[in-house]
């Protein structure tokens, strides 16, 4: 078996390398990919007086190296990169590097504070489990983990900043400016980490050694510390993914609170088509994500030591939160009734005499800044968001089924896809193709497949290793017969169910892109866009912002409770150690997937 393992590892390493190069090349080729002529922009930025003659424009094109073709453009960019030269901003004409460095400094400060918030929250969620010895954090942590950063940021801004006036809501002038952004960024990550640890702990505390230690008079604190050490290693990679999620969340949070960090710089550069600045800041965000992932992998190796090499570990089985089926059902019914009601109304009619009206019988959820009915826009927005999300789901399903048969290739590519938050891919796609629903869908589709393909690969491996497939070969069945009659049917059904579970998470990711202006464009009634548009009027018409916020929160709840319910069912039906360990991995991947989509 050994040579096979080594081969697939090196294959994964090769694909990882190829994918990384592909991502870097995409970043480097942005000016060529976007296909837009920046000469006029650059000319206007450099000198307002100069006449826009064809000669002047041609000189600028030559100066930027745009005429030289993609390969030499990429070569110039890469050689500049190696010398530490990120180029010159097309808009301001200044060097990109200092802007990137200052942005990274601000963002690192914010992420550090957010990480502290996350760890504090995780400790608060885990402590009761350690004290009581059993039980789980339940639905509360699940909800915290599922609420997207941009929603939390908007609500925090509204409540603490605007209504209560406790804390400053925009800028970066002192420690007090850090509080709200750090909470908005840290709470979802803390909810996820706390929940993962708290769900895994009861099983560990049930293990025989705990009884033995307690019987031998070992103190409770030492038993707790040992139990934590036992729980952490399998979860560390997911901590890394949570850290990657922070880089994506930073874009939204920095935008909401006007923090001059690297995320906001990247988004601003994408919107103003300042591609060198965009390349620099996306590169910095990617580096942050990759470093976080590498640190997590290193930490896991240190924690496990030789046990990892000798494959001498047994995974503690997780006790997932078993959601009552009524919870996702009620959430789904509430959402569907609202959407159905909204669909019967007209979302586009502008009535300037009816601007920012409070809820009434004529407008059950009030009207927005242009006098459009909020309920109607909510309903129509859901239809398009869910439709797009379904298309994205179908795409990732097909891709993951195909990749399930190439686990080596899939693993390497998945590592890179996991290191890319959807927001950053969204920025890249929007910079190359312009913002739009299609681009947002592509961005989410590009990175939403790893969890599905890991699931498919595990199932393919299991089916292929089973005796009855050997029996198929013995009757003289062809590989095609075995594939279509036996392997695909056993893999497709569970992976499809998994894909459907991810639908709300994908819809949330699309809403996040819409919120940042990278997805659907006005006047389309997309939920993220609705929330963004209503932010301007939160003081006068909070209901216009609350309606999409509550709808998104319900969707987040649906994502988590639906996933937990389905896991509870699959977990209960399976028996056998191997099956349980696999399910645990699968659950964790669903969990992280819901989180990573946002």
């Amino acid at each position, binding site marked *: 078996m*050994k*040579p096979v393992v080594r081969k697939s590892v090196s294959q994964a390493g090769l694909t990882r390398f190829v994918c990384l190069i592909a991502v870097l090349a995409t970043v480097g080729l942005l000016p060529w990919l976007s296909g837009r002529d920046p000469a006029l922009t650059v000319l206007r930025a450099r000198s307002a007086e100069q006449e826009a003659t064809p000669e002047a424009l041609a000189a600028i094109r030559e100066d930027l190296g745009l005429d030289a073709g993609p390969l030499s453009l990429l070569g110039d960019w890469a050689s500049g990169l190696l010398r530490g030269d990120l180029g010159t901003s097309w808009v301001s004409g200044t060097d990109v590097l200092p802007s990137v460095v200052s942005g990274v400094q601000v963002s690192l400060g914010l992420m550090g504070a957010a990480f502290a918030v996350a760890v504090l929250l995780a400790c608060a969620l885990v402590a009761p489990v350690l004290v009581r010895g059993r039980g789980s954090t339940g639905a509360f942590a699940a909800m915290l983990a599922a609420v997207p950063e941009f929603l939390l940021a908007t609500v925090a801004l509204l409540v603490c900043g605007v209504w209560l006036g406790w804390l400053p809501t925009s800028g970066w002038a002192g420690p007090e400016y850090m509080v709200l952004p750090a909470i908005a960024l840290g709470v979802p990550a803390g909810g996820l980490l706390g929940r993962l640890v708290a769900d895994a702990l009861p099983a560990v505390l049930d293990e025989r050694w705990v009884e033995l230690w307690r019987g031998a008079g070992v103190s409770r604190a030492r038993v707790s510390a040992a139990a934590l050490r036992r729980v952490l290693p399998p979860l560390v990679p997911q901590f890394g993914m949570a850290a990657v999620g922070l880089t994506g969340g930073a874009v939204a949070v920095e935008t909401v609170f006007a923090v001059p960090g690297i995320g906001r710089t990247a988004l601003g550069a994408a919107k103003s088509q300042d591609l060198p600045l965009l390349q620099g800041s996306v590169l910095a965000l990617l580096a942050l994500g990759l470093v976080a992932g590498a640190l997590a992998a290193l930490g896991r190796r240190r924690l496990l030591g030789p046990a990892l090499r000798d494959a001498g570990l047994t995974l503690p089985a997780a006790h997932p939160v078993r959601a009552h089926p009524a919870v996702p059902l009620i959430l789904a019914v509430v959402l569907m009734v609202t959407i159905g009601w909204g669909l019967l109304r007209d979302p586009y009619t502008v009535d300037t005499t009816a601007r920012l009206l409070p809820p009434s019988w004529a407008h059950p959820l009030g009207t927005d800044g242009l006098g459009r009915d909020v309920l109607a826009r909510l309903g129509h927005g859901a239809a398009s968001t869910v439709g797009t999300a379904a298309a994205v789901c179908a795409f990732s399903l097909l891709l993951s089924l195909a990749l399930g048969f190439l686990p080596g290739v899939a693993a390497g590519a998945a590592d890179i896809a996991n290191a890319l938050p959807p927001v950053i891919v969204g920025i890249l796609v929007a910079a190359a193709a312009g913002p739009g629903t299609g681009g947002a869908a592509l961005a989410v589709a590009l990175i939403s497949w790893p969890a599905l393909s890991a699931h498919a690969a595990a199932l393919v491996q299991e089916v292929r290793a*089973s*005796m*009855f497939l*050997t*029996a*198929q*070969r*013995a*009757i*003289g*069945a*062809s590989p095609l*017969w075995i594939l279509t*009659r*036996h392997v695909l*049917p*056993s893999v497709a059904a569970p992976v499809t169910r998994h894909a459907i579970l991810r639908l709300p998470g994908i819809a949330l990711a699309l809403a996040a892109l819409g919120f940042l202006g990278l997805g659907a464009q006005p006047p389309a009634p997309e939920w993220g866009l609705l929330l963004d548009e209503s932010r301007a009027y939160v003081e006068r018409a909070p209901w216009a912002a609350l309606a999409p916020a509550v709808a998104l929160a319900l969707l987040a709840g649906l994502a988590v409770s639906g996933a937990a319910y389905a896991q509870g069912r699959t977990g209960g039906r399976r028996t056998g150690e191997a099956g349980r360990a696999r399910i645990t991995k699968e659950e964790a991947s669903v969990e992280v997937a819901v989180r990573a989509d946002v």
Partner: protein
Amino acid sequence: MSDALLDVRDLVVRYGTVTAVDHVSFTVDAGETLALNGPSGCGKSSTVAAVLQLRRPEGGEVRFEGRELTTLAERELRPLRPRMQPVFQDPYGSLSPRHRIRDAVAEPLKVQGRWNPADGPARVAELLDRVGLDPAYGDRFPHELSGGQCQRAGIARALASEPRLLVLDEPVSALDPSIRAGVLNLLTDLQDELGLAYLFICHDRAVVRHFADRAIEMRAGRLVTA
């Protein structure tokens, strides 16, 4: 050159540096039962996999009905496979959990192009009846049958390929002692009726003495004189 149904010569199976089967030779004549006996880990199952060409051996010859199998390509081998059918130890593991018994028994007919809708179902019912299963069980899934019933279904499926040799890899060791005798009697009856040859893998000497015409014994990958 012998005219035995199955003639295995100097069979070698290696996993990396470990030699699981070390120059093993034996023959099985038509209509005969040869027991291959030995403790667990001695290379019995590797021998079975290599004889069935489910795993290509590292050395030696496997001659079946006079044809050398080890040099044949998978495509050339496929039409010959039905003549030599396995029955595995785990009665549930050898049937797809997703298919009804009826479909599992019909599958060899479909794969081998001998299925027609007119008399196919009757053929399946006849096969189930022959192994002592009520044809009504055809509607069930493997997990709805007992271990013994499942093993009978597995035998019915093997018979559907119209084999001359059954390779029985510990077919009764996963079953209750009370069920074993029934399955062994069934196998004896089938041999008398159909003239089947058996390569019978076993580690229970008592069963071997009752059931087999000849017995050979393996230890640590080699044959020892019985």
